[in-house]
């Protein structure tokens, strides 16, 4: 140690204690200080300690905007423009994240999940009908890597990404169905039979197939949410969950007493929350959130729900797909700006503590957007 860093004034143990409190940006710059520091910043224990020190209670809002810039009517080609940036609590852009110059990124891609600074991204292939590829990406330290493909050519019906502190590993999970439903009604309602599951582990760097008895779901195409080592999907009238540590998939019935199904799932104050919208008798909209907890009884697993909040006569935008961020509900939406029907993308926000509303205008090229909670980290896309 002493030979590498000539005559350190402070013991290395104290230096580590200072370095783990630095922002990611400074650490990236200080990789060039000396070899000892460069190696330190790559060690899993330092990365974990650094993550523990980051301000998890105040994540940034990651805004992914995209729009089609050009459509070739003859060859069917499309040029997509994407932008990715981090917003702080004042909705000021604190960093525009550079998008990797991999050719496939020029096309359509979407974020599957965001966890400890790591993003899992699904990129559509150029050729139609060919399977999409998955990438792991830490935009802040500019690391990106394609996840190896599997020979599995079945249809992916659900995909999720998350972390479990129990096994200290990041995993991607893909649920497959054999084929499109043959029955017209089933196809219309996205009634699917899941017959296999594949799991990719970042620590082993490989996929593994898990066998399950087939089960039916109604695909809701809702965003997967990640709570405390479990990934959840809302597949009305059930919740599909996957425990990252034990690799067990479960279907859980939503409580019967509620006639309506939640509109979406979210994570609020580190708990799984179902978001419901009711139309009151006077035609106005009310919104509820229920904290959901898995309970096991004789009749199997079910979800126990307790009401978290109720917004009486809430703003109209609460019907959109949403995300909880700090004390706010964030709903990407559209707003009419011209009489001719010209629309722009906006983020509507509703503060659960103060009931205040605010709005954020997206970029002009943006026709769709997505939002995630994001905390900067040094977590590597390579096997840790």
């Amino acid at each position, binding site marked *: 140690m002493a030979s590498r860093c000539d005559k350190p004034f402070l013991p290395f143990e104290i230096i580590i204690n200072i370095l783990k409190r630095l*922002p990611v940006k400074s650490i990236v710059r200080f990789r060039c200080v000396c070899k000892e520091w460069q190696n330190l910043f790559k060690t899993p224990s330092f990365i974990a300690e650094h993550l523990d020190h980051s301000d998890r209670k105040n994540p940034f809002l990651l805004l992914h905007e995209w729009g089609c810039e050009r459509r070739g009517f003859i060859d069917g080609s499309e040029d997509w423009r994407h932008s990715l940036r981090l917003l702080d609590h004042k909705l000021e852009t604190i960093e525009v994240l550079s998008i990797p110059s991999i050719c496939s990124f020029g096309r359509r891609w979407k974020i599957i999940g965001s966890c400890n600074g790591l993003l899992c991204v699904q990129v559509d292939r150029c050729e139609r009908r060919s399977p999409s590829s998955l990438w792991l990406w830490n935009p802040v330290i500019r690391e990106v890597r394609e996840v190896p493909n599997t020979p599995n050519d079945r249809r992916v019906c659900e995909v999720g990404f998350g972390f479990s502190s129990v096994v200290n590993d990041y995993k991607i999970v893909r649920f497959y169905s054999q084929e499109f439903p043959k029955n017209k009604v089933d196809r219309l309602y996205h009634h699917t039979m899941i017959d296999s599951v594949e799991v990719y582990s970042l620590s082993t760097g490989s996929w593994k197939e898990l066998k399950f008895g087939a089960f039916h779901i109604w695909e809701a195409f809702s965003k997967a949410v990640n709570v405390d080592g479990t990934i959840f999907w809302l597949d009305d009238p059930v919740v599909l969950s996957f425990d990252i540590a034990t690799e067990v998939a479960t279907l859980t019935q939503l409580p019967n007493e509620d006639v309506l199904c939640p509109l979406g799932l979210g994570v609020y104050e580190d708990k799984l929350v179902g978001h419901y919208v009711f139309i009151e008798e006077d035609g106005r909209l009310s919104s509820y959130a229920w904290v959901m907890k898995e309970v096991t009884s004789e009749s199997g697993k079910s979800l126990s729900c307790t009401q978290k909040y109720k917004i009486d006569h809430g703003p109209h935008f609460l019907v959109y797909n949403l995300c909880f961020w700090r004390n706010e509900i964030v709903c990407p939406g559209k707003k009419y700006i011209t009489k001719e029907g010209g629309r722009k993308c906006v983020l509507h926000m509703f503060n659960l503590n103060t009931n205040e509303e605010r709005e954020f205008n997206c970029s002009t090229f943006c026709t769709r957007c997505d939002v995630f909670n994001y905390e900067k980290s040094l977590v590597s896309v390579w096997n840790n």
Partner: protein
Amino acid sequence: MSSSVEAITVLSSDGDEFKITVSAAKLSKPLNWMLEDVCFSDDCDEVPTIEVNSKTLVKVIEYCEKHAPRANSGASDSDAEELKKWDIEFMKMDVKDILFHILMAANYLHMEGLYDLACQTAADLMKGMTVSQIRKIFHIKNDFSSEEQEQLRRQHPGCSFD
């Protein structure tokens, strides 16, 4: 140890004498052990030495005296807020000249609060520095060969070794 003793005398590594109240000394585990071990009655003339220089010890004692009432009795939110402001003012110091000495002392005296505060202050001061400024304050030599620097520049465009 006599319960009537309210302050003790300690020596710095430079040989200067300092007074510290018993309640303040309790913020440090080693000082607390010293209190229990050493005879502090009037007829005992043994004065314990703390391996911290005078300039640093003044600051450490100042911190202890300020934080002792809160550590011993607990405090209201407004007190905590006031203490936070005091900490910020207290930490306005030169990195190499004194902050690093405080870090060493807090580590040696097992003072968690002061250690965390000093580490965070050092990090806040460092975050905007250039690579060469960092090397200077930590006495670090650039040990990358020119080939290695070239390779790193290719891997991470825009990285700087200065």
